[in-house]
C-alpha cells in the first residue's frame, strides 16, 4: 500500500466511560461501537460477530485491536483475509502495534508469495506450512491458503477480514478451522462473483456464490451485527452522498466537520475546464467535468486526456491540504492522488496519457484494485461515460461506491453528458429469483441519485 491508512479512530478512543456518552461527537460514537464489538467478541455468548464497516471507518484498526486483545486474552487466533496484500498489511500493522507479539504469516509456495518487508520484522515468522507456525499467538493468511490447511484441534478464534468480498464456498472451506469468529467487512463494495452460472443454488441459504456473510446470517440469524458509524476518511462533503446512495439502511457520517479539511491551490485558475472543476472540487468536495455527449469506445481519447489534464493541473497548481492530521498544510503530491476507472484498458490509457504529460507516481487503477485504499484526491472516469448502453457490470453499485469513496478531500468525476438519458433508456428486465433477498441499493437507482448530486457541481467543457 502506498497510501497508509493512518486511522485516527484508535488514537481518539476515549479514556473513560464519561467520554462515550456525548451523542454528537463522532469519536465517541465510534468508540462506543468499537467497545461493543470487542465486548461481544471477547465475552459474548455467540459463535460469531458481524461488523459492517463503511469506507474508511477504521476497519483495519478494529481488526488489529481485536487481534491484540484476543491474543492478550490467551486465545490462539487465526486471521483470514482475501488477498496477500491485505494479509501483509495486517501483519505490518500488528507488528507496529505490538512488536513483541509472536505472529505467523502463512503463505503459498509461489515465488513472491508475501511482501519481503515482513522478513525484517523480528517476531514475524513466515512459512508455507501451517505446522511451522503452530503455537504462535496469531497466524494470518489468505482464505485460499487456509483452505488447504488441516488441523486436529481448531483455533479458538478467528477474524475474517473483508468478509463481504469472500464467497460462501470459501468460508465453507475454512470454517472448520475455528470455533468462533469475528467477521468484518464493507457491504457496499464489490460483491464476489462466479464466472460460471450458479442460478441453480439461488435462494438456498448456502448458495456457494453468495457472500460469506449472507450465508452466515441465514444460518445464524441471532448473531450480533454491529456497524462502525463514522468514516474517518470521507470528508463531510462526501459522507452524506456515499451513505445515502450506497448504504441507505446503514447510514454513517463523517468524522470531520465541514471546513475541517481544506484543499487549496497556490496557482490561480486559468479558466479552462480542468482548472474550474479543480476549484469546484476544492471548494465543495465534488466536481463533475462534463464533456459533450458522444458515444465512444471505452478508451475515449478526449475523456482520457481530460482525466490526465485534471491530474496534471492539480500537481502544477501547487495544491496543499489541511486536515485534522496536522496544523501545517501538507503538499498535495502525486502519491496522494489516484485515478479510478471501470476497465483495465481505460487505466492503461490514462497511464500513458499521464506519462505524455510527464506525470508519474499517480496511482491509476480499476475499482477492483482500489478497494481498501485511500488518497487525498481522486479523479474518476465515470463508468457510464460515452457508453451506448449500460450493462450489469457498469451498473454495479460496488464499483461506483469504491470509486466515489477513496478520497479524504475531493473527488473529480469526468464524464460525457447523456448519463441520465442512458439511465432512462436502460431496460429494466432483471430476472428475480424466489427466496433471494433483494439487494439494496439498486445499481440503477444509485447511479441516478449520485448523478443528480454531481450534476450540481457540473463544469461543462469542450476540450
Amino acid at each position, binding site marked *: 500500500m502506498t497510501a497508509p491508512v493512518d486511522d485516527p479512530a484508535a488514537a481518539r478512543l476515549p479514556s473513560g466511560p464519561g467520554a462515550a456518552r456525548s451523542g454528537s461527537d463522532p469519536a465517541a460514537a465510534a468508540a462506543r461501537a468499537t467497545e461493543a464489538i470487542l465486548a461481544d467478541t471477547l465475552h459474548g455468548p455467540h459463535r460469531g460477530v458481524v461488523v459492517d464497516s463503511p469506507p474508511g471507518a477504521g476497519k483495519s484498526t478494529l481488526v488489529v485491536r481485536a487481534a491484540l486483545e484476543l491474543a492478550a486474552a490467551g486465545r490462539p487466533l487465526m486471521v483470514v483475509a482475501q488477498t496477500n496484500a491485505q494479509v501483509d498489511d495486517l501483519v505490518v500493522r500488528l507488528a507496529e502495534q505490538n512488536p513483541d507479539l509472536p505472529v505467523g504469516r502463512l503463505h503459498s509456495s509461489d515465488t513472491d508469495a508475501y511482501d519481503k518487508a515482513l522478513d525484517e520484522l523480528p517476531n514475524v515468522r513466515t512459512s508455507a506450512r501451517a505446522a511451522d507456525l503452530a503455537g504462535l499467538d496469531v497466524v494470518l493468511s489468505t482464505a485460499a491458503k487456509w483452505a488447504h490447511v488441516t488441523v486436529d484441534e481448531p483455533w479458538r478464534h478467528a477474524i475474517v477480514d473483508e468478509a463481504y468480498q469472500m464467497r460462501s464456498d470459501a468460508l465453507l472451506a475454512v470454517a472448520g478451522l475455528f470455533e468462533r469468529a469475528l467477521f468484518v467487512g464493507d457491504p457496499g463494495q464489490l460483491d464476489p462473483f462466479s464466472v460460471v452460472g450458479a*442460478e*441453480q443454488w*439461488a*435462494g438456498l441459504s448456502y448458495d456457494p456464490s453468495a457472500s460469506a456473510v449472507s450465508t452466515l446470517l441465514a444460518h445464524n440469524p441471532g448473531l450480533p451485527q454491529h456497524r462502525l458509524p463514522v468514516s474517518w476518511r470521507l470528508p463531510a462533503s462526501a459522507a452524506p452522498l456515499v451513505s445515502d446512495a450506497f448504504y441507505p439502511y446503514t447510514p454513517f457520517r463523517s468524522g470531520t466537520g465541514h471546513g475541517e479539511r481544506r484543499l487549496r491551490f497556490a496557482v490561480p485558475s486559468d479558466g479552462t475546464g480542468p482548472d474550474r472543476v479543480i476549484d469546484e472540487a476544492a471548494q465543495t468536495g465534488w466536481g463533475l467535468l462534463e464533456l459533450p455527449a*458522444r*458515444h*465512444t*469506445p*471505452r*478508451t*475515449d*481519447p478526449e475523456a482520457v486526456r481530460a482525466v490526465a489534464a485534471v491530474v496534471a493541473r492539480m500537481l502544477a497548481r501547487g495544491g496543499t491540504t489541511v486536515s485534522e492530521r496536522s496544523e501545517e498544510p501538507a503538499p498535495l503530491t502525486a502519491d496522494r492522488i489516484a485515478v479510478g476507472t471501470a476497465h483495465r484498458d481505460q487505466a492503461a*490509457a490514462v497511464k500513458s496519457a499521464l506519462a505524455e504529460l510527464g506525470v508519474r507516481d499517480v496511482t491509476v487503477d480499476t475499482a477492483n484494485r482500489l478497494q481498501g485504499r485511500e488518497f487525498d484526491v481522486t479523479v474518476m472516469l465515470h463508468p457510464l461515460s*460515452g*457508453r*451506448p*448502453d449500460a*450493462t450489469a457490470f457498469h451498473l454495479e453499485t460496488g464499483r461506483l461506491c469504491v470509486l466515489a469513496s477513496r478520497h479524504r478531500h475531493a473527488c473529480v468525476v469526468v464524464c460525457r453528458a447523456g448519463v441520465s*438519458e442512458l439511465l*432512462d*433508456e*436502460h*431496460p*429494466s*428486465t*432483471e*430476472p*428475480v*429469483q*424466489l*427466496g433471494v*433477498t*433483494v439487494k*439494496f441499493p*439498486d445499481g*440503477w*437507482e444509485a447511479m441516478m441519485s449520485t448523478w443528480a448530486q454531481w450534476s450540481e457541481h457540473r463544469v461543462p467543457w469542450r476540450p
Partner: protein
Amino acid sequence: MPARPLDARALAALAANPGCRRRALLDGAGVDKAALADALGAPAAFGQSQFAFARGHAFETRVKADGGAELLRLVHERLDPTAEPPRQAEVADLAATNNEGRTARTALALREATEAGGWTLLDHPMLALQVAGSPAFLEPDAVVVHPDGTWTVVEIKSFPVLDGAADPAKVGAAARQAAVYVLALEEVAARLDPPPRVRDRVLLVCPKDFSNLPAASAVDVRKQRAVTARQLARLTRLEEIAGALPEGVCFSPELPAEELTAAVDAVPATYAPECLATCELAFHCRARALAAGEVTALGRSVRAELGGLRTVEEVLAAAHGEAGEEDDPAVAALRRAAALRAQALAAATAEEVPCP
C-alpha cells in the same frame, strides 16, 4: 378507435425498451399495435395456446375457491403471520357495467374493507393509473385487505415453482406487473384519509412442482416499483414526441400500407432484438432497422465497442481501412480485430497445426 388498456404486454414492452419513442407514443395513445402490425404486413407472433389458457384458468379458480379462504390463508401465512388468522372471508362485490364503474366500485370496496378491519378479498378489482395524461385500466388477479388496513397485491401465474425455484425471467415479469398494480393502488390509497399503506411485498401464487396445488411466495417489488414509477412519469413527455410529428399523422389500420408505413416511420424507434419477445410491432421495426443497416439490430451489446459507428457499412469500412481515422480508438481496435481475425483464418487454412 377506442384506446386499449395498458395490458401486461404493453408494460413488458415498456420495461424491455423504455427508450423507444415509437412504442411510447403508440402505447400512450392506446393504439392497437397488433392490428397496426397486421396492417403493416408484419403481424405479431403472440398467441396463447388454449391448453395453457384452460390450465391457467383452472388453477386460478382453484386458488380462489371457497370464497378465497385458501388465498387469504396464504397471504396470512406468508405476509402477515402475526395478524389474526382469517376465519370468515369477506369477498367484495365489484360488479359494474364498465371499467369506470368497476374502478369506482373497487375504490369503494377498498375503503369499506379498510374501515371494517378484517380480511377482505377483492377478486379481479379494477384500478386506474394515470398514464400519459389519461387513465389506463388495470386488472390485478386479486387484492387483499389486511385487518390492519394494509393492502396486498396478489398475482396468480401458471408457471410452476419447482423445488422452491421458478423461472427468474417470469418471476421478474410478474414482479414488474405487480409493481404497476402497487402504484395504482397507491393512487387509490392517497385519496383516503388516513391513506392506507400498500405493501411492497406482493404475493405470487404458482402451481407447486407438478401439481395443481398453490405455492405462494412473497416477492419484494420495491425496485420494480421505483423503476416503473420513473418510467411511467416519463410517458408524460408524449406531447414532446407527438409535437415533433408532421401535422395530421394517423395510425389507423384502415390506411393504405404505404401511408401507414410512412406514419409509423415518422416516429423514431430504437429496435433491439429483445423487442421480439415483447412488442407487437417488432417484426416491422426489425425489417426497417436491418434495411437501414443498424448494428443494434444484431444485439444491444454489439454497439458497446463501436463508439460513434452505427451502421454495418460504416463499421466494415472502418475495419477494412476504407474509412475512419486511425486515432479513433474504435477504428483502431476494429482494424486490429480485423487483422487478427484474417491472420487466424489464414493460419487455419494454411496448416492444420494451430498456434504453438
